[in-house]
């Protein structure tokens, strides 16, 4: 069994991760301070924060969004992700 799976599906195949709306983000870094999974990474330059490890994000967790004052974080549509997982599970059924 792969090291990093969620519901039997390789984690990197599940497109669940935050998206930063840079029009709103003020780089306060609250989300990065909050997230214990190193999903975010700070960097030099104009764009001081990126989602560098999307596969580290806990599927269905949106807790960091609550720390975001300017409401710059969004997540994928949950029912769609459930469908993706169901489909991948069916495809991987023989494995």
């Amino acid at each position, binding site marked *: 069994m792969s090291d990093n799976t969620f*519901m039997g599906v390789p984690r990197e195949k599940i497109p669940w991760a935050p998206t930063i709306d840079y029009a709103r983000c003020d780089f306060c870094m609250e989300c990065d301070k*909050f997230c*214990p999974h190193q999903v975010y990474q700070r960097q030099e330059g104009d764009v001081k924060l990126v989602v560098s490890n999307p596969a580290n994000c806990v599927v269905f*967790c949106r*807790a960091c969004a609550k720390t975001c004052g300017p409401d710059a974080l969004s997540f994928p549509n*949950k*029912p769609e992700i*459930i469908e993706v997982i169901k489909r991948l599970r069916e495809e991987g059924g023989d494995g």
Partner: protein
Amino acid sequence: MAERFAVLPCNGLDKAVGPLAREIALAVVEACEGELVCPVLFNNLPARYAKALELPLIVIDGCGTRCASKLAAEHALKVVRKLQVAEALKEMGESAGETLTPDPERLALCQRLAERLLSAPEEGTTRDREAAFTEPVEYATVTRDKFIFRIPRQGYLFNENHCWVRVAGGRARVGLSDYMQQELGDLTYCELPQVGAEIGQFDAVGSVESVKAVSDIISPVSGPVVAVNPAVAETPEIINQDPYVRGWVAELELRDLESDRALLLDGEAYLTLVRQKAADYRP
């Protein structure tokens, strides 16, 4: 085989809820191979239904006038389950609509309400359900250094977000697994959901905060919240002490357990998952 029932529905055909009561009654009778009692004929000729009324009786009222319930009371019938359509729709955030002919969407609601009636515990069994939810649990354990993670062997289902669900009488309690509460450490705060909130599978049904982190409680099942556990809001440590019984967070009315179940783990599968997690567990 499912238990059979006699069903006495509202016969109010001049309001939108009446035809819905009829549809629910038909669905119940069909599903349990029960007996339908026409309120008009029963009123004129009770003997006609003497045989049918040997079965436990479900009464379905359309509106607040509760004609069917009153009729049952006049004839001293013992009612084991009842439903008032207008009220039930309101609870679900739905309406009876404008037309006397139910549309497909409302027919689907009727089907759901019929299923709920058939799976609902009989009146006066709230205590039985409470007993089912608090029955002692037999645990399997995973040990890693000085940490011991308990996993109920039976009666619980889990999602991979380390939340559990325990089902009794058409309802489900949800909470955090022992693994998750130990990973978080001493809890300092537990946010409960609103009673009445519609929760989808994998929606947050509250959150917990510990000295180390904040975490959403991801619901393994879908349905409206019908109760919350005020004890854990007041004393979150209860979740640390007894995560599977006294530490329940919310109680949901089940919408579609069969469909939810496809994405859940039983105790044994969750035990395997915790074994893997424990292998690289660093508190």
